[in-house]
């Protein structure tokens, strides 16, 4: 043992702590080879499946690719973001969050680390979806402004769903159950206009599909990238995302300080 006297530290500033936690989460992501591989493979596999397996049956002229790319972007973002529930829960059950809470810092910034790392990881997945789409023949008609708006909305969606997953991670009993609860959120894109137009669904389902949050977000991204009718989808989609972020932030704020490892 060294017998150095280490002066008592006042702790990192909130912004400094957030930056340190972002670095930590990004590094964890890079180290987790399996998760990284999934993050890259999943978008590629989903693109190929929807284009070549379902695409022919849905629209034999190949136009399905243009229809489905925005849906797959959101589906992948959801899958990618669900990892946050597991990372947050792992921090909780291993006692890491206990330790951070006993440091003289604003400890919820640990969640900022997870959320920002998820944003980076999922924007990368979005890039892969678009890249594979273009290689398969996807030809977006968007101008630079439309691109920025579309990617901005995708980023906002990732932020919203990541924040919700962070909350799930905080209240779940174990990393496994955190993963399980996440599937409820991941199911939403299937009952939206992501893969088939809502007009093809039975009446009772159509009402839900039209008004659930995923549909306006997808319609906005689709409209911006491929020039389909936008209508009021944009503001509605943004409102859903902002609402989800605010609600998740409040829930996290209320829960964080009450959760300990045991």
């Amino acid at each position, binding site marked *: *043992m*060294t*017998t*150095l*006297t*280490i*002066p*008592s*530290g*006042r*702790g*990192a500033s909130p912004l*400094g*702590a957030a930056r*340190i936690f972002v670095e*930590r989460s990004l*590094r*964890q992501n890079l*180290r*987790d080879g399996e998760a990284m591989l999934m993050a890259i493979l999943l978008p590629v596999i989903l693109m190929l499946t929807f284009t070549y397996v379902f695409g022919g049956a849905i629209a034999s002229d190949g136009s399905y690719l243009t229809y489905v790319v925005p849906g797959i972007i959101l589906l992948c973002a959801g899958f990618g973001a669900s990892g946050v529930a597991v990372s947050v829960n792992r921090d909780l*059950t*291993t*006692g*890491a969050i*206990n*330790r*951070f*809470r*006993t*440091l*003289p*810092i604003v400890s919820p910034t640990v969640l900022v680390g997870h959320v920002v790392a998820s944003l980076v990881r999922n924007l990368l997945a979005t890039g892969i979806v678009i890249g594979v789409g273009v290689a398969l023949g996807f030809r977006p008609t968007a101008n630079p402004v439309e691109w920025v708006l579309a990617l901005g909305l995708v980023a906002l969606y990732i932020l919203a769903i990541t924040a919700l997953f962070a909350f799930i991670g905080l209240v779940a009993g174990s990393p496994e159950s955190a993963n399980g609860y996440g599937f409820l959120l991941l199911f939403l894109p299937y009952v939206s206009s992501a893969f088939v137009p809502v007009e093809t669904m039975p009446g009772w389902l159509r009402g839900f599909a039209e008004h659930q949050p995923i549909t306006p977000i997808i319609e906005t991204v689709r409209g911006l990238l491929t020039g389909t009718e936008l209508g009021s989808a944009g503001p509605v989609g943004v409102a859903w995302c902002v609402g989800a972020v605010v609600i998740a932030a409040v829930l996290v704020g209320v829960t964080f300080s009450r959760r*300990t*490892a*045991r």
Partner: protein
Amino acid sequence: MASAIEVDALRKSYGSAVVLSDLTLTVPSGIYSLLGPNGAGKTTLVNILTTLVKPDGGTASICGVPLTDRRCVRQQISVTGQFAAVDALLTPAENLVLIGRLLGMSARRARGRADELIDSFDLSASAGKLVRDLSGGTARRVDLAMSLVQQPKVLFLDEPTTGLDPTSRRRLWADIRALARTGTTVLLTTQYLEEAEALADRIGVLAQGRIVAEGTAAELTARIGGEELVLTTGDGEVVRTLTTDGTAGGVAAALAQLGSDAAGLHVELRRPTLEDAFASLTGSGIDREKVAA
């Protein structure tokens, strides 16, 4: 100078389950061991004293700073819990640097401090590996090192050796003793009597949410009376146990009370162990016949 830890009438319940009931405790300095069975309230007390959980009532202070001043308390303490709270996907060095920087050190200073700790905890062979590839014992030592990036005035160790093999346990004990010599007060919870006896200057016995006895290991042992005369058959079966004060006169008097049917029995003089004290104090005792001498 204020005591390292001062706890007064602390109360905590979860629903109708009372976990701590009017717990009062003073830890002056050195190593203090909180000994108790599972569910006695050890972890709850540690969680309250480390600002993680709010008590329902009562007060406590760390080095004179009331618990309500959380930020200031957090500057005095460090905690190592029952699980190794170490980042599995980072190396030991990266884990230590992370804590250093969160404490407000510059990146350079944090790296320097990490190097010192890796040296003193003899972790250099593991420093470049990811924690997930280390043994449980080594991960615990990294965990302890993380609690010492900044030398705390009070270190809380909640069952630090649970699940460790005997060698790793002894090694961690040596680290804890060395730390206490540098002036850090250690509050150690354990359900192992051997651990409390080996490390602690003072022991508090916690049962059903309150301290039922307190003192050095010797004092606790003395509290349940003197030495015992154990009478056994030739096969080693215990027939009777007599309590005496351990003096020749006391032993003779105790033996004189026995009838002639005891003449063939073997006599053994036994000092009470901390385990006996623990059993009699917490009521979770080994049943045996007691005869007043």
